[in-house]
């Protein structure tokens, strides 16, 4: 973790902007006590506090669902937009194009992104819009009393005994396949892994997909569920111990040879990945597919940074969008002159 890399600066009470953790909180959550989503909100709060992000530069987006309520519960000083079920990616794309200076943080759910919004999800990844895209994945539709969602594992069982007959859609597998340049999976109960992953995802130059298993305590936390706290803990296959050192800290990253991999991002920050059981290279897309398929076969939940390509070309770059927010462009920039119109009219004569 970044703290352990910089022993001279122990866990700070204030960050580089002179703000305290409390300043990064949002409204009080209305979700069920013990909901995984609240732990993720807390992890986002902590990550952005520790990074010292100016909240006015952040726009929070979400679709509809339990998960999509959460942007109200973190970064209370940021603008937020709770949009339409499954179609947050379109709203986020428009926001990014209108103002590429905004750092987008989006929260969606497995229903929002893998069911109604799957088409939007796929095209968003294809476009590589710069955004931290968190899917709070609990395998059920919590707001409508806990039916299976499209990410529920085959043969997992609902509270009242209904068995799921269908194969799960794996958002991480899809993302790797679609060319997403930052794909990670984590667990809401593992803040040690989640916080540095959020920091790394926030530093990424394109879409950073972070699928977080986030147990639903009301509808999907029983025996027979494969998205419960107990099941996730017992079947968690962590690829590495992850750390993040932001670029502004300007600290030499010490790498223990053979034990830790280091991925440098264009903004000068570093992701450090300490080896656990076996070697894993997160810059190999095929390797990412392989571990995801293996995890499915072995009924494990593989967590960590599955794939990263630090040299990511975002949608705004591909479109050569201006750096200045479009909202700040005036008539001088936007309105061609009378002579230009006359020239067009002449062509049509």
């Amino acid at each position, binding site marked *: 973790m970044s703290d352990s890399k910089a022993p001279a600066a122990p866990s700070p009470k204030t960050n580089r902007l002179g703000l305290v953790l409390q300043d990064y909180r949002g409204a009080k959550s209305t979700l069920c006590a013990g909901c995984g989503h609240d732990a993720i909100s807390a992890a986002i709060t902590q990550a952005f506090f520790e990074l010292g992000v100016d909240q006015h530069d952040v726009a929070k987006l979400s679709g509809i669902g339990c998960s999509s309520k959460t942007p109200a519960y973190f970064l209370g*000083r940021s603008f937020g937009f709770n*949009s339409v079920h499954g179609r947050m990616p379109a709203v986020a794309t*428009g*926001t990014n194009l*209108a103002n590429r200076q905004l750092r987008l943080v989006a929260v969606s759910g497995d229903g929002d992104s893998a069911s109604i919004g799957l088409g939007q999800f796929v095209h968003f990844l294809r476009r590589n819009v710069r955004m931290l895209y968190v899917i709070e994945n609990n395998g059920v539709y919590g707001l409508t009393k806990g039916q299976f969602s499209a990410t529920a594992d085959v043969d997992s069982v609902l509270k009242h005994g209904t068995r799921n007959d269908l194969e799960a859609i794996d958002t991480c597998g899809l993302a790797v396949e679609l060319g997403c340049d930052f794909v990670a999976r984590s667990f809401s109960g593992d803040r040690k892994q989640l916080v540095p992953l959020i920091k790394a995802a926030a530093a990424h130059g394109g879409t950073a997909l972070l699928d977080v298993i986030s147990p639903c305590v009301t509808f999907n936390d029983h025996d027979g569920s494969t998205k419960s706290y107990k099941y996730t803990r017992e079947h968690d296959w962590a690829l590495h111990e992850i750390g993040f050192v932001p670029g502004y800290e300007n600290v030499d990253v010490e790498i223990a040879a053979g034990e830790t991999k280091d991925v440098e991002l264009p903004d000068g920050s570093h992701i450090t990945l300490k080896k656990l059981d076996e070697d894993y290279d997160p810059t190999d897309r095929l390797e990412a597919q392989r571990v995801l398929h293996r995890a499915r076969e072995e009924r494990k939940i593989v967590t960590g940074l599955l794939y990263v390509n630090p040299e990511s070309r975002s949608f705004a770059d591909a479109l050569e969008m201006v750096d200045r*927010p479009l*909202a700040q462009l005036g008539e001088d920039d936007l309105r061609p002159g*009378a002579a230009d119109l*006359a020239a067009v009219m002449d062509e049509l004569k």
Partner: protein
Amino acid sequence: MVVGAGWAGARAMTSTSGPGISLMSEFAGLSYYAEVPAVIWDIQRVGPSTGLPTRTAQGDVSMVANLSHGDTEHIVLLPATVEECFRCGQEAFDLAEEFQTLVFVLSDLDLGMNQWMSDPFEFAEPPYRRGKVLDAEAIEKVGKFERYRDVDGDGVPYRTLPGNPHPQAAYFCRGSGHDEAAAYSESAEVYQRNLDRLARKLDTARDRVPAPVLDAMEGATIGIIAFGTSDAPMKEARDMLSAAGVATDYLRLRALPLNDAVTEFIDGHEHVFVVEQNRDAQMAGLIKLHCGDVAHKLTSLLHYDGLPIHARFIADGVTAKVGQKVEV
């Protein structure tokens, strides 16, 4: 995408036709209720469903006027010529930003995809009307900012754009119930107050959207109301009628919501024809809603075979009612 860009402060529009609007109608309610500027250009084609995809109609009028679940009303522009479409470009954005809401522009397949003769377009001189946007300095000056507070009594609140660094600037935009300060609310009073303000806002827009254009004829007791591409054959139809001794006044609608100019026009004539290119007299329905008990005065002339409306259809429709024969 347009809604996201509009929220972030860019002028954004998309163009589509009826089925695209049906598919994405949820966003119309979001734009109206969360008060996000957006422009949708509808090249109307024949419906319902896939209908006749390459034929023309004015069949989306009642759909877009109130599109969305719940109580909703949108500003709609009704250009009749390519030159008017050109001017509508700026007008639609100006209105969307001034009223922080969705603006539909109803073109149709005849106007949008056929070739038309036109005089050269004139260069638009008027400055952009960007509406009530507060930057950090402006918030500092007024001292207090609440996103949905009706400060001026016209139903139109002030807004801030993401990225505004003032500590009061940020707000949470949502399609769920919200109070004046943009906080989530399920309060009955707050909900009703907000809905009433939105109605007040659209009332303000009533007299700010492009007004109907009146083309009067000496001694006319018969009125004709039309809009959009029905304008093209109207001149010829009125000439035919005039030659047969039937003088007509013509009111061309250019926008919704309707205003009192329509009521006055109907009041001032013995008989009024409403010409439109759909089966269900969609515009006449909106006129009856706005103008009250005028049904006895209105006769609808409805052209809905997918082909452009023509002068003979209008002239015959009028003479059939008033008992004159038109010579060609």
